[in-house]
């Protein structure tokens, strides 16, 4: 039996890991691994394979913004309806319903400062049901999705230790 959680953790951190390598690591056959990954896709457990990119090292000028939105829930639909009005925008990379002082958290990537400002003032704030917004910009990424953005640790151990 393949341990699905273990398999998912491995591909989560390295989407390009080879099926044959996974098979050895998890003591299974390549066919079994492929079948399990396929099943995960079918069940919408695996939704895609992304690449971690440190955009700061490229010439792109885009910013990442976190927008907290307070809204009034709508009758019969709760927060879902209004959330869908936000997350359909392609520049919204993540959208979460939150507990605590506000209701929805939107993460905007791929936009310039100007674009974020326009988006908030023209598309979010005026929407019926939105009580207030609060926008935060990320200044520097230290770690994201478990990956450190600072340089990698080198192995400084002695060559031989008994």
């Amino acid at each position, binding site marked *: 039996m393949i341990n699905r959680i*273990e398999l998912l953790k*491995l591909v989560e951190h390295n989407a390009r890991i080879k099926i044959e*390598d996974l098979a*050895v*690591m*998890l*003591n299974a056959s390549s066919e079994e691994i492929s079948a399990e990954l396929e099943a995960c896709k079918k069940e919408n457990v695996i939704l895609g394979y992304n690449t971690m990119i440190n955009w700061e090292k490229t010439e792109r000028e885009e910013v990442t913004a976190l927008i907290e939105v307070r809204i009034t829930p709508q009758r019969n639909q709760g927060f879902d309806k209004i959330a869908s009005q936000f997350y359909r925008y392609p520049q919204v990379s993540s959208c979460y319903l939150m507990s605590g002082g506000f209701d929805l958290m939107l993460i905007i990537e791929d936009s310039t400062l100007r674009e974020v400002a326009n988006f908030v003032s023209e598309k979010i704030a005026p929407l019926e049901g939105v009580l207030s917004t609060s926008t935060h910009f990320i200044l520097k990424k230290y770690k994201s999705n478990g990956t450190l953005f600072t340089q990698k*640790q080198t*192995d400084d*151990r*002695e*060559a*031989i*230790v*008994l």
Partner: protein
Amino acid sequence: MEIDYQSKISTVVNNIAPSAIRRFFDLANEMKEEVISLSIGEPDFVTPWSIREAGIFSLEDGYTHYSPNQGYIEVRKAISEYLERRFDLKYDPKKQLLVTVGGSEALDLIARALINPGDEVIILEPCFVAYKATVTLAHGVPVVIETKEEDEYKLKPEALEAAITDKTKYIILGYPGNPTGATMTKEDLSKIKDILVRHPDIFVVSDELYSELSYTGEKPASIANFPELYDRTIVVNGFSKSFAMTGWRIGYMAGPAPLIAAMNKVHQYCIMSSPTTAQYAVIEACRNGDKDVEEMRDEYNRRRRVIINGLKEAGLSCFDPTGAFYAFPSIEGLGLTCEEFCERFLMEKKVAIVPGSAFGKCGEGHVRISYAASMENIQEAMRRLKEFVTELKNGSKE
């Protein structure tokens, strides 16, 4: 006038043979930058952050003094709870535990506190290099039992029976083992117990440094779990391997109160107390470290499978290691001694592994491969090993 320093050094120290493979080590160390090293007996992981943080916090709070000789009572309590929770071992933190500078110090203290000149200590080779040396330095006589690949490097009851004399003081068991990765199950240990029950003067030192790194899926067994032997067993353990804390230099021993008191006497005059920062850090390790240990163990286990598979593909036979982070494949039939094999592998393929003879004469014909290294390095090293072995086989046919 020239001073003859050699003649000034004590006979026991002079009699400890310099490691025959020192030259190989020097060579590997010089080439450190360009080689992949699978020769290291310590975790590649950095100590989990919460444990490091606990140490740092103790420094910020000004805990920079000597601790009580035996170790802080909070530390001993934490270790006691940990041993009971993880291994069903019960020890009174007040009288039965001593916090040491690594398992290494514990092994040394045991030798010095128990051995009278000429007493014999049974050790099972191939094994961790310190066993023999600690006994010799304490004027004891190491009696070697050679364990064999076909027995999965387990101690056979007959071999034990044959090695026991009326001078035997204790036996050192080191499972899961360095360099073999062998484990002894509860049933295996039970047979050893039956013999020791018939020899009530012999003590058991159980080196359980790798007890957390067991891949059998079962709870690792300790010989101290047998009530018949509990009063005659000293368990040596530590945080170096299980919690990736080698550089902190902290370990402990657990056993009968009068013996712990005797060890503490030696410890008190030679060491004073184990490092205070490390002691604060291991409270966190004992109480909240299980998840970190589990993650490291799972990763070692995956690497273990990659190594076993790599050895098979390279055509080297290896018994399946079930613990620690070592594989100990045979290189027999390739026309090289283990030292020649390692030296040529290092020079030709830039991979460092350790000749089996470093761990005792009977380690000849084998090499130790450590999988306390990154998965990428292991995979690349296995690729090169296959190349190397193939070249050797083709070469020797010509």
